[in-house]
């Protein structure tokens, strides 16, 4: 299933619900929790930072293959940005040292089986995969 949303300003919730309504996304509650959370963190990033004015598009594609692997991809033509280049937060820091924020992408990486990013044909492509038959 592929859905294109444009413009995307303020549309984080719409992006999340688009994915959650996809027939490729299973009904299992634990899986849906992980998927929703991961999608929210990525959608939030794209909506807030991809385009300076929020006037661009995001293309969301979901596929479920025969082995039960669910793939969710996000494509936008915004500012080139690889969220995976960012270092993981240090989760062992004490309360005082712990900075507020910077956890979104890290949560997505932890919840999914794999995440990847490629800049291609002028577009950011972020892909997350999770095995739905674990």
């Amino acid at each position, binding site marked *: 299933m592929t859905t294109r949303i444009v413009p995307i300003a303020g549309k984080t919730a719409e992006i999340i619900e688009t994915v959650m309504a996809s027939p490729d996304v299973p009904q299992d509650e634990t899986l849906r*929790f992980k998927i929703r*959370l991961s999608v*929210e963190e990525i959608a939030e990033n794209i909506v807030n930072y991809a385009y300076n004015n929020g006037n661009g598009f995001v293309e969301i594609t979901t596929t479920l293959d025969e082995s039960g692997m669910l793939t969710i991809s996000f494509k936008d033509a915004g500012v080139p940005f690889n969220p995976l280049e960012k270092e993981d937060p240090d989760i*062992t820091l004490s*309360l005082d040292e712990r900075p*507020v924020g910077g956890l*979104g992408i890290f*949560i997505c990486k932890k919840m999914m089986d794999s995440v990847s990013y490629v800049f291609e044909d002028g577009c950011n492509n972020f892909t997350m995969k999770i095995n739905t038959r674990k």
Partner: protein
Amino acid sequence: MEVIINQEDGKTYVKLSGRLDTTNASAFQTDIEPLFALEDPDIELDCTDMEYTSSQGLRAFLMLQKSVTSHGGKLVMTNMKPQVREVFDITGFSTIINIK
């Protein structure tokens, strides 16, 4: 996300219900504003009916914990659902916030 704050015998009980996400994180921040103003905070957040939290919710809980600690007070989160607990675990928040 529903937030109900009750004061009883010097303790503050907060009942959290629903999903804490991008659509309501800033409203939630406003809802819990009174907790940042407590002089001698002793707060219990009842998470029995909290279905979900994204990183924006975590941000609010971290700020609250920092505030409570700086006031020399106590904060405890209780009855967290397993999937919500997992978010606290993977981010290391379970080691800086008291969860029972």
